[in-house]
């Protein structure tokens, strides 16, 4: 019984070697392309990029390996929740969200047992259900190229955790005023900046409705709305920055 199996294997290897010799590596390229389409599979950067060095900034150290794991060794996943720019994470995410094409998180990320992680990095960003992951993906696309505030933040490398401090944001999560004011505050200064010259008491940041949430007007992942206009239809007010 063993003999025919051995023989078969042998023939297969030979045939494969011949094919390989004739196609000069195209088989591997083919294999990589097919892999790239499969969900939840971490694939080589080379399936899209000819050379890794082409996509690195100038003066970047040479990189060995061909997956995101090569980057992780130096660029450790930034788990901090500080309201600060994250240039590396921001750049690499933005670069992989092509205009009109969407994104595929699973090229670099892992999602097993509802845990959302990064390929060969040993870190987990937290629990995330499949639909929430899809939601976050769409928000990332908005963040990279929309006309909303999220894209305004993207331009200065502000990512999710800079606003959503606690954990992976889920549908319906909001951002407290204190968080916004870390960068945009203190409130008194903001009020001074936004004071209209013609009608000083039409200051949107000094509402007669009291201490209202920033998010009443400023929506990050959809178009912002001037709440004042709900009653004061004749006010000329616009929200800069999406």
């Amino acid at each position, binding site marked *: 019984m063993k003999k025919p199996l051995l023989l078969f294997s042998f023939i297969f290897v030979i045939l494969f070697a011949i094919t390989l010799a004739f196609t000069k590596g195209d088989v591997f390229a083919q294999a990589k392309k097919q892999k790239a389409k499969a969900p939840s599979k971490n694939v080589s950067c080379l399936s899209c990029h000819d050379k890794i060095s082409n996509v690195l900034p100038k003066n970047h150290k040479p990189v060995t390996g061909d997956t995101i794991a090569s980057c992780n060794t130096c660029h450790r996943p930034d788990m901090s929740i500080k309201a600060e720019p994250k240039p590396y994470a921001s750049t690499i995410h933005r670069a992989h969200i092509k205009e009109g094409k969407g994104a595929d998180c699973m090229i670099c990320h892992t999602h097993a047992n509802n845990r959302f992680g990064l390929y060969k990095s040993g870190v987990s960003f937290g629990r995330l259900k499949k639909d929430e992951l899809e939601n976050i993906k769409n928000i990332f696309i908005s963040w990279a190229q929309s006309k909303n505030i999220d894209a305004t933040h993207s331009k200065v490398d502000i990512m999710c955790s800079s606003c959503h401090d606690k954990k992976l944001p889920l*549908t319906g999560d909001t951002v407290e005023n204190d968080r916004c004011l870390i960068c945009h505050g203190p409130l008194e200064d903001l009020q001074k900046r936004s004071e209209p010259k013609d009608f000083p008491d039409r200051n949107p940041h000094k509402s*007669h409705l009291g201490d*209202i949430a920033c998010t009443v007007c400023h929506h990050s992942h959809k178009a912002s709305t001037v*709440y004042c206009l709900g009653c*004061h239809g*004749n006010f000329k007010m616009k929200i800069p920055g999406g």
Partner: protein
Amino acid sequence: MYLECIKVRVNLNKEKELKSFLDGVFNNLEQYGGLVRFEFYKNSLVPLDYIIHLYWKEDINITLGSPLSYYIIEGLQRIGLINHTMWVEETTIGDMEYNKGDTSEDTKNYPDFKNNVNKEETMAKKDEIKDMPNKITRRGFLKAGVSAGMLAAATGLALDLTKKDAEAAAKTLPKKWDEEIDVVVVGSGFAGLAAASEAGKRGAKVVILEKMPTYGGNSIINGGVYAAWDSKLHLRQKLNLGNDSPKQHFDDTLKGGDYYNIPVLVKNLTEGSADALNWMIEEGGCKLREALTRAGGHSAYRTHTVAEGVGRGFTEPLRKIAEKYGAKIRLNNEITWIWRKDTEGPILGVEVKTPKGKRNIKIKKALVLASGGFSRDIKMRQAFNPSVVPEYNSTNHPGATGECIRFAQAIGADTLHMAFIQLYPFAEPETGILDNPAVYPFNGVGYGLIYVDKNGKRFVNELERRDVCSMAQIKLGQKPTYSIFNEEMVTKMGGTMEEIEKGIAKGRFIKANTIEELAQKLKMPVNNLVETVKKHNQYLKDGKDPDFNKPITKAMIPLEKGPFYAVAQWPAVHHTMGGIRINEKAQVIDIWGKVIPKFYAAGEVTGGVHGSNRLGSNAIPDCVVHGRIAGINAAQEKA
């Protein structure tokens, strides 16, 4: 060939029995000669609805139906049939255009009985059970279902009259609750905050659900005027402004409402308003201006103005009290249904739309509806009062849309006075908002402020009620009209020079040193305005107004000394007097006159307090007094 359809609705818990019963019928079909096929579908949109198709080869009685259908109905009645409809159609099965796509999991397609037809042809189109194939030539309705009352009582369904299809007038109670709360208050205005404060003070866990992204609704943008015959500050006595009593306030309110008012509710208001004001001063740190005004329809100087000059001066103290007693405000939480099992039982809970999705909250003690009126729902206000045309602006915030009144009606609550809709006569003409300058025309009349039209002529007794002042303007047919007053009146009527300066900067107040100059600035015939003012000054001296019969008081100041001011005004939809019927305990009353257990309402969402026309500055005392009553009683309900 004939198709006999039996559309049934069954008790949700009896699905298993239904299936086994139909299996039993299916296995004994031999005895029914002429039956070609037996099919049984579940409507995947309405989980309780099934339809049974019986195909008959021979003619059956098209008006009576087959014995088999009666057998099925009888059988189903034993296992929780709620409602059914039967009819017979003439059909040609071969011409039927069934969708050959996949049948959904919840559509059970019984195999053919006799004369096998191609199975694919019998595939039912998902969700489209109602859409019968063409080739229907005759149709006979046999039987309609049972009454709606029985439906709710027998099956644990809340009535849902919002559905377009009357047959589908049922909304199933949630299988599980996401949360349990003692007292749920809907709305975070005066009434809601007052109710939450009193309920919280008595140990109840209170949550305030507010659909808007900011708290306070109409209350926080309200004019900040409060009618009370007295307060701990005793301003009337201090400023020597005559006499007043709860009885006098009561009489004024009834007269102002054309005696449509429910007297016990007016009594609550007039007797409770001074205490409620003191409560906000003592517990909430509310501050009042050292002024008291006599407003339209009131026979005494009893209108207090809050220091901030806007309703926020009352909502902030109320919020402070409510939060002190543990009440939590949840913004962006909109109720979408009130749960009640049947027409006898208590409120069970509410369905809420939150930013994180739908939640069902079980209510242990009581629900307090304080969700305001419907001035911003053009369709609703015109449905009750066609004269309130869409062209009218509104002083209200965008959330004043009245859907909670419909939710309450859907579970049996009674309403009254829905057609009585008040216009605020002095709103900003362009947008209809009630901004700070728009309060002056209302507060100033007791001190001699006059209203003039574009020709510089008076057109109404300024001390008239709001409906009269509004109609007088509308009948002029020339927008806008103006209030004319002088600097001497400003602080007396509860205004401040700071407000005047701000108003001038915005172009709301027009200032002039002489009446002539004012008329020029208003582009009014100068002589007319001069003449009008001169005449009115004389009327004040004579103590008599022969033109409009205004009751002249000693507090009224003649327009002799400048500077003079004018402010433009025009009516805008302001307050819906009608709403849910409550009793003196703020309990909601149903359409049979009975109390709906565990259900309270207070504020503009209720009807009957103000009758056909609310007197200005009666709204806040109504809201705070009845809110407190609702909160006290809600906390005392058994969990």
